[in-house]
């Protein structure tokens, strides 16, 4: 029962094939059996999950869209009374007094919380190796990284430890681990899902979205968590469409663009070959394929890290050892409390981000770095808008490279940043992207395809992704554990 999609699990629950408590217990058992190896979970909320399941069984009502579906949240999404650590020593013992708005929406939808999953510290990283609690491991080969920062969420779905998870994506953190672990990952448009209660990294980029076993499931979950929130002034009143209407199995009338810069230098051949094979499938489904160009792509990495680290440096100034989080016991004066608490509480990548951001925002460098990058960002948004005049969606790899070995890049921050070269442009433009399983390398490692569309066009992503999924079997492949 633990390998089913949301849709199939719900049918089984409604037909009384098993109870919600039996289902939840099966997932808890699976976590117990596999997580010593995979390290996907930071906290398992067994008691909460079984209590929520019992309530659903007693009510016997499976009419809500996620009724009785066991899931987990990346450990940067606040949960009232349940530890939320951001995988940092700084928040190792932090228990929020309120829920993130998106978690309240999931609870209203009937979902069951199995636990909180692993991430790079404060979501800064592309491999999950920057977690204070140790890296998660890729279930396809446990010597390899699961991707990041939403490594725990991706592993938990790939290894059938949960039906779905909610990750966050600031520069690729949902799509890249989804690609590395062969699950579906949606980065919604900026402002489509409320950020309230999600521990911030870079506020003008941060998004939260579903990581699932099928495209249809991603559409179901987005339906529940999307929409304007009075708790987040950057959410918009753009109506949330009925996403199920986009789940057709044919692409006639759709134009898909292949941005040539996303297939160029630095993209491994096995990756681009797999995506081109997927393009052939979509052509057979009726799509028109056109080549397009996004010449500013090569500037995405510096533009992204200047802006994201600048925002991070201000966001993370709240951790001072006074209001909450880690406090040093080695200080006499106030400033010493700040300096020592922060130095003890943050890991190296977070320190690098804070220092780079502080530098880019400081007097004398602000114009050359922060302001320059904010202008390049405006140009990149414009470039995407022009491309979407010519096509409905773009098709590209998610990651230019296959999953890499644990430790391979952990001492080379610049090499790690470059991994995000094909995912950060989507965050810079505030548009939406979906990662779907599209192949396996000769060495048996997953390859993901990225479908990208304009702001608030998630429906088009679901249409293309669902049609591709129905015509292929990559999403059915499972790692041997």
């Amino acid at each position, binding site marked *: 029962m633990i390998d089913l999609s949301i849709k199939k699990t719900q049918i089984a629950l409604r037909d009384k094939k098993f109870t919600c408590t039996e289902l939840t217990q099966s997932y808890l058992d699976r976590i117990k059996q596999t997580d010593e190896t995979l390290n996907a979970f930071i906290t398992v909320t067994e008691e909460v999950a079984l209590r929520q399941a019992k309530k659903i069984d007693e009510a016997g009502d499976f009419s809500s869209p996620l009724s009785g579906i066991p899931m987990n949240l990346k450990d940067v999404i606040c949960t009232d009374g349940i530890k939320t650590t951001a995988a940092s020593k700084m928040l190792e013992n932090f228990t929020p*007094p309120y829920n993130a708005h998106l978690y309240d929406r999931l609870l209203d939808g009937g979902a069951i919380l199995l636990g909180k999953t692993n991430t790079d510290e404060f979501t800064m990283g592309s491999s999950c190796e920057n977690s204070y609690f140790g890296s998660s491991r890729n279930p396809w080969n446990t010597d390899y990284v699961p991707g990041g920062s939403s490594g725990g969420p991706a592993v938990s779905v790939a290894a059938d430890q949960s039906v779905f998870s909610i990750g966050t994506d600031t520069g690729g953190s949902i799509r890249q681990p989804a690609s590395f672990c062969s699950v579906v990952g949606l980065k919604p448009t900026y402002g489509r899902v409320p950020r309230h209660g999600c521990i911030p990294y870079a506020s003008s980029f941060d998004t939260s979205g579903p990581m699932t076993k099928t495209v249809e499931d991603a559409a179901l979950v987005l339906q529940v968590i999307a929409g304007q929130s009075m708790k987040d002034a950057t959410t918009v009143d753009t109506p949330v469409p009925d996403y199920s209407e986009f789940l057709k199995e044919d692409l006639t009338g759709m134009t898909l663009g292949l941005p040539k810069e996303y297939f160029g230098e630095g993209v491994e051949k096995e990756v681009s070959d797999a995506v081109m094979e997927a393009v052939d499938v979509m052509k057979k489904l009726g799509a028109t394929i056109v080549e397009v160009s996004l010449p500013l792509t090569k500037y995405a990495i510096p533009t992204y890290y200047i802006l994201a680290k600048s925002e991070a440096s201000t966001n993370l100034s709240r951790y001072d050892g006074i209001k909450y989080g880690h406090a040093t016991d080695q200080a006499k004066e106030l400033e010493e409390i700040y300096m*020592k608490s922060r130095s003890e509480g943050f890991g190296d990548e977070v320190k690098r981000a804070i*220092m*780079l951001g502080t530098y880019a925002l400081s007097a004398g*460098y602000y114009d050359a770095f922060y302001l320059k990058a*904010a202008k390049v960002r405006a140009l990149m948004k414009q470039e995407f808008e022009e491309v979407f005049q010519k096509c409905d969606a773009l098709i590209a790899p998610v990651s230019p490279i296959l999953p890499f070995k644990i430790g391979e890049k952990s001492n080379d921050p610049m090499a790690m940043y470059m991994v995000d070269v094909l995912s950060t442009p989507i965050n*810079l433009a505030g548009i939406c992207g979906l990662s779907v399983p599209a192949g396996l390398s000769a060495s048996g490692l997953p390859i993901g395809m990225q479908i990208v569309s304009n702001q608030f066009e998630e429906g088009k992503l679901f249409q293309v992704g669902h049609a591709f999924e129905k015509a292929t079997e990559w999403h059915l492949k499972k790692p041997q554990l």
Partner: protein
Amino acid sequence: MDSNSNDNQSKLTKADVKRIAHLAKLEMSEEDAEKFLPQLQQIVDNAKMLEEVDTSNIEPIAQITGIDNMVYADQIETQNLASLLLAQSPQTIEKGMIKVNNIL
């Protein structure tokens, strides 16, 4: 600023790393400063490629979906969060306030 002075300015030294760390309220040992210096230098050098992009007459962007000034009715709501929030503090609480160490 012209590109020459920019080159000079963005050549980082260990003293710069320590100054930035201090601005960011991070303690920085000699050892750490030595470790971070080449990493930050490499990242800053890479960012210089942005100079190639012509951004004259371009307005910088920070709000990507184009919304501004979201307003809502200014109504007082009772939250009763004060004691819960104070309980989060790792410092001593006295009379509903967080007691901190000396400033000097």
